C-alpha cells in the first residue's frame, strides 16, 4: 500500500485553466504539506495543514488554494494556471515535530 499517494502523476494543461491535484495518506499522520520543486530542483514549502487546520501558508499566489476535507487528505486547487506554475508538486505528511516527512511521488504539472 502506498503511504502518500498523489493523483494525477502527470498533468498537462493550457494557460488559464483550473486544475486540482489530490493527495491522500494512509499513515494516520496529523500533518500534511504541499511543496513545489522547480526546474532547478529547489524545494519550497507552500502549505501545511494539521488536522484539517491551515498552519503554514507561505507567500503563494491566491490562485493556489489548498483544501483538507479530513486529516488524511490534502488537495491543491490552482486557478488560472500560468506558465510559471509548471513544476513538480509534492505532497508529504508527518506525525510529530521530531519526525521526518513521508513524501508522495510527485505530480509533474506542465502548463502550455
Amino acid at each position: 500500500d502506498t503511504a502518500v499517494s498523489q493523483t494525477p502523476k502527470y498533468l498537462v494543461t493550457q494557460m488559464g485553466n483550473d486544475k486540482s491535484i489530490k493527495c491522500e495518506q494512509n499513515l494516520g499522520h496529523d500533518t500534511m504539506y504541499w511543496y513545489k520543486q522547480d526546474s532547478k530542483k529547489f524545494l519550497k514549502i507552500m502549505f501545511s495543514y494539521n488536522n484539517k487546520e491551515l498552519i503554514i501558508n507561505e507567500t503563494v499566489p491566491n490562485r493556489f488554494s489548498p483544501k483538507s476535507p479530513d486529516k488524511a487528505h490534502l488537495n491543491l486547487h490552482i486557478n488560472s494556471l500560468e506558465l510559471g506554475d509548471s513544476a513538480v508538486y509534492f505532497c508529504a505528511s508527518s506525525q510529530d515535530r521530531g519526525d521526518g516527512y513521508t513524501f508522495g511521488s510527485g505530480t509533474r504539472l506542465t502548463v502550455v
Partner: protein
Amino acid sequence: AQSVAQPEDQVNVAEGNPLTVKCTYSVSGNPYLFWYVQYPNRGLQFLLKYITGDNLVKGSYGFEAEFNKSQTSFHLKKPSALVSDSALYFCAVKRGGATNKLIFGTGTLLAVQP
C-alpha cells in the same frame, strides 16, 4: 529565520571510495536535521535524522551523518560508494518546538563512477 546551505552542486566519486556531501545550517534554538535522497522522477526518500543524542547518526543504505554544533554542519557520509548511490541529495532543517516547517537545501547531485 532558518536556512540550509549545500555548497556543492555536484560531487563526483569513484565506486568504492568514501563520499561526503556537505551541509551547513542556520537556525535559532535546537535544530532537527534530516537527509533525503531523490532518484530521477521519484519522490524524496528519508535517509536519516538528528534530533538529539549521539552526534553520529546512522541511516538507510549505509549512510551516516555527523552533527557538529560548533561548525553548524551535518555532513552526509558513506565509507564506500556504490554506483546505485547516484542521486540528488537534500539536507533539511526545522526548528525544534516550532511549527513543523522543513526547510530544504538546494540539493547536491552525487555521481558515482564505476
